[in-house]
């Protein structure tokens, strides 16, 4: 009896003008409605309406691509929330992070963000491993594999830029170690091979105050300027590029014939 009422309620809702205007199809029960549900939704129509059978098996797909995307969204949301309580300056950065655990309501956002970021690195790697293991990079998907490699690199870079923001010893020294490599960049790093060749007369062009590391840090050492730079890169710069590449990545999946599979 109860079930019946509910059903009729659902049905009545599905037939209402409001529902139809938003969702278009009714409660997806018929084949047509089920396809409509996918095609009519801006989010779901990333998927084709029909897919080969092995594509719904977790054992084949591992769902790692989807999870990576999901984590990206989770990290965006938690990241935005963290921005309310975090100020990227040498005065406040560290104490604001202390306050996350000490007094900020829902300070667990920091844990969600940090562990989510680590998890995303793993899911991206696993996704790549799965794609390799099933040989899915092979034609016609060569280009999309390349996009994927770039996305993976950017994921690492996102995580890397976020590493500095707590402004603790772990942060500053991980970034110092990480960016010290840029010193050794051939030609454009002041301790890299060839840097000394870039000189006009006795005037050195590439030195500690003008090389690629300097550009990254906004100074000779990790300092206030670096914190701001990494903050901007972490919150806006890199996510922006990632979003564009993700769009390409998803679109190419469809254009390259959907999920890979044996012919």
């Amino acid at each position: 009896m109860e079930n019946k009422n509910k059903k009729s309620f659902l049905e009545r809702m599905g037939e209402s003008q409001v529902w139809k205007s938003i969702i278009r199809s009714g409660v997806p029960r018929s084949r047509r409605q089920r396809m409509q549900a996918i095609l009519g939704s801006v989010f779901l129509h990333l998927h084709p309406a029909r897919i080969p059978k092995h594509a719904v098996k977790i054992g084949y797909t591992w769902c790692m691509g989807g999870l990576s995307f999901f984590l990206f969204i989770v990290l965006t949301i938690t990241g935005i929330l963290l921005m309310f309580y975090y100020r990227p300056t040498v005065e406040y950065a560290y104490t604001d992070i202390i306050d996350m655990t000490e007094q900020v309501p829902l300070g667990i956002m920091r844990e969600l963000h940090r562990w989510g970021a680590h998890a995303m690195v793993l899911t991206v790697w696993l996704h790549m491993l799965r794609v390799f293991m099933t040989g899915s990079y092979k034609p016609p998907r060569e280009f999309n594999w390349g996009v994927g490699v770039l996305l993976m690199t950017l994921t690492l870079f996102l995580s890397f830029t976020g590493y500095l923001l707590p402004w603790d010893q772990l942060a500053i020294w991980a970034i110092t170690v990480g960016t010290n490599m840029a010193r050794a960049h051939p030609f454009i790093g002041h301790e890299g091979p060839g840097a000394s060749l870039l000189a006009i007369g006795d005037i050195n062009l590439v030195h500690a105050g003008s090389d690629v590391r300097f550009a990254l840090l906004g100074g000779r050492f990790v300092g206030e300027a670096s914190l701001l730079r990494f903050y901007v890169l972490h919150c806006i710069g890199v996510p922006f590029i990632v979003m564009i590449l993700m769009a390409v990545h998803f679109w190419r999946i469809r254009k390259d014939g959907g999920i890979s599979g044996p012919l």
Partner: protein
Amino acid sequence: MTEDIKTTPPASVSPAEKDDNALGRRGFFRWMTVGWIAFSVATGGFFTVIVRFLFPNVLFEPPQTFKAGFPNDYASNFVDTRYKKKFNVWMVRDEESIFALSTVCTHLGCTPNWLGTENKFKCPCHGSGFRMTGINFEGPAPRPLERYKISVATDGQILVDKTKSFKWEKGEWENAESFLKV
């Protein structure tokens, strides 16, 4: 195929399951309902908590309430300027009450001075004058000074709360929170 779906209950899927139709339907609803309820509770909770997130637990701005000593610290018919600099408040005691007067001139926001000998507040900017009660009586100020919420804390000290102000022209000075009877 399409017909089939239309005529059969939506949840039943494979021919093999058609036999225990009724059971399936019940199962469908039971599990699905439970699932959706739990899911909505959790996500709804999340969004509620996120709204809570917007309200910080502590503030680093100067406190808007402050303790201003005991009522007996104030002499009758006297304007106390102790809290002027730090909190922008004059503590005034007249015959029968104590009240906290804002130090912001209602003309253009300067800070008037208390002239004890002339028994008035005089604004140095454009010469507005206010009586001890805060009522304007000379110069360009359009309305009296504002008063702040005042009460007695549990330890007997006067508690001034600057987040709530009372305006004479709205008749709010009659409000019991705008003065402290002594």
